[in-house]
């Protein structure tokens, strides 16, 4: 499991952020104190660091250049200031990416994922997902069950991905919509229902008629 260190002074953001990261399969750690960040990083050895610029003892830029003295751990700067100067300083001091508050959590996750991939040189960890003998291949948009294969459209793949990554729990319609819109698929509520119906038809053709369960008024579940 990959470890992310969050250096952020707002305790509420820390709590929500660690929840978000943990829900997405990352391990989260925090520095013990602001004075010992560099040694904390050596001890905890995170795979990636989320660094706020405005911090109580010394600012994020100073910390970043201190970290860069003896570590190549990827750093994503997080700041509430929208200014090109900050972005420029953070990149020139050795930061790998930059995101401004209030960020879209999906974009933050995408940035983390991309950086981790680059560092570990592995392909996307989510290319295939499986649940109850059903295999979803995201890169090819195929769903495989007992030697049967069905082809899914881009939208359908994305919907199935949402359901698979949340398997065993209800996936709210709104969350599916969020994730579609984040991927630039701008559909409305009715189109989502149409897509679900179409997926169901495809699923029954390979002997999975009740794979997707409808939770009336809330969402879907597998």
């Amino acid at each position, binding site marked *: 499991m990959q470890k992310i260190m969050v250096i952020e002074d707002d305790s509420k953001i820390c709590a929500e952020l660690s929840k978000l990261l943990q829900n997405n399969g990352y391990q989260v750690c925090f520095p013990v104190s602001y004075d010992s960040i560099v040694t904390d990083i050596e001890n905890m050895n995170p795979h990636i660091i989320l660094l706020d610029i405005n911090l109580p003892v010394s600012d994020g830029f100073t910390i970043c250049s201190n970290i860069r003295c003896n570590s190549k751990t990827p750093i994503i700067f997080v700041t509430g*200031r*929208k200014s090109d100067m900050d972005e420029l300083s953070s990149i020139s001091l050795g930061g790998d990416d930059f995101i401004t508050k209030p960020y879209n959590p999906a974009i933050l996750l995408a940035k983390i994922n991309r950086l981790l991939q680059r560092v570990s040189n592995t392909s996307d960890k989510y290319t295939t997902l499986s649940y109850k003998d059903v295999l979803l291949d995201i890169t090819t948009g195929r769903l495989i069950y007992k030697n049967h294969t069905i082809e899914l459209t881009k939208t359908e793949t994305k919907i199935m991905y949402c359901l698979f990554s949340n398997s065993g729990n209800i996936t709210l319609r709104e969350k599916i919509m969020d994730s579609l819109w984040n991927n630039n698929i701008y559909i409305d509520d009715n189109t989502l229902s149409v897509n679900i119906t179409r997926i169901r038809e495809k699923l029954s053709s390979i002997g999975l008629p009740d794979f997707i369960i409808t939770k009336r008024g809330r969402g879907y579940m597998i």
Partner: protein
Amino acid sequence: MTIKKYLKNNVSLFILHVLCMLAFVLYLTIIGVDRLPIGIILSIWVMVLMTWLIYSYLKQKRHFHYLQSVIDSLEKKYLITQVTPLPEGLNEQFYFTLLRQAEKSMMEEITSIHHAHADYREYIEQWVHEINGPLTSLKLKYENDKSGVLYPVMFEIEQIENYVEQALYFARSENVDKDCLIKQVKICEVVNAAIVKNKHLLRNTLNLDIQPMTETVYSDSKWLEFIIGQIIINAVKYRSEANSLLSIYTETQNNDVLLGIEDNGIGILPSELPRIFDKGFTGMNGRNNKQSTGLGLYLCKQLCDKLGHEITVIGAQGKGTTVIIRFCKG
């Protein structure tokens, strides 16, 4: 300065000379001097006086002309005493020192206003920075929330985000040059970013028709995203009741790229079209919709001007609005 004005200004000198002449003639007559020498003396007197008057008139005229040309060439006219030499006349010198004092006190006033303005701007930036903390926290909370109770709140949160951004850009709008980074940007990426940012506002209010866009333009992606965002929000605010549609497309015209953002909303009165980019102008739609600030399009225009893009709005009441941004090539 006309001759008439000059003579009027020197009227006391004339009276003095005439009185002196009369007294002189009277005295010479009493002591029994002939008329001829008196006439010669008087004419020489008048000639000398005239020559002096003409000379000083020309000199003064040239001096005034010089001062006028100096002040005309100055961008900050109140700096006139800094670029002209100390004048010769006692009167002029006195006024000159007064002017210098006045200028100094005005400079102090301007500086203090500048400081106050900079402080205020800094405060707004700081405030935006602070408010972004809780906003981030709220968005993360929504993302972590599995029950869906926070879903309706996102519509409001996105609106708050937009207003906060507007405040930031307004505070910066006077010296935006510092924060501008022109580079090649893909239009579709910026448009998509603006839509994703406002996804909860757009979803369930408008149907989107986004044409495939392949063009790249030279612009600042952050500013452009803000501009497109403002136009999209307007389309949401002033949408028609049913079947609202927002289409975004690009066109190439004479090497220029045009980005069109078209809605079928309530539109704008033709009489109000020329004023929509004015600061604080809300129009009829704004008066009916109390959330109008009259700042959105004003800022769009300001930023487009700085970026060198041309922004135009066409449309009629009841027939929707089309905003076109023209990106000039090269």
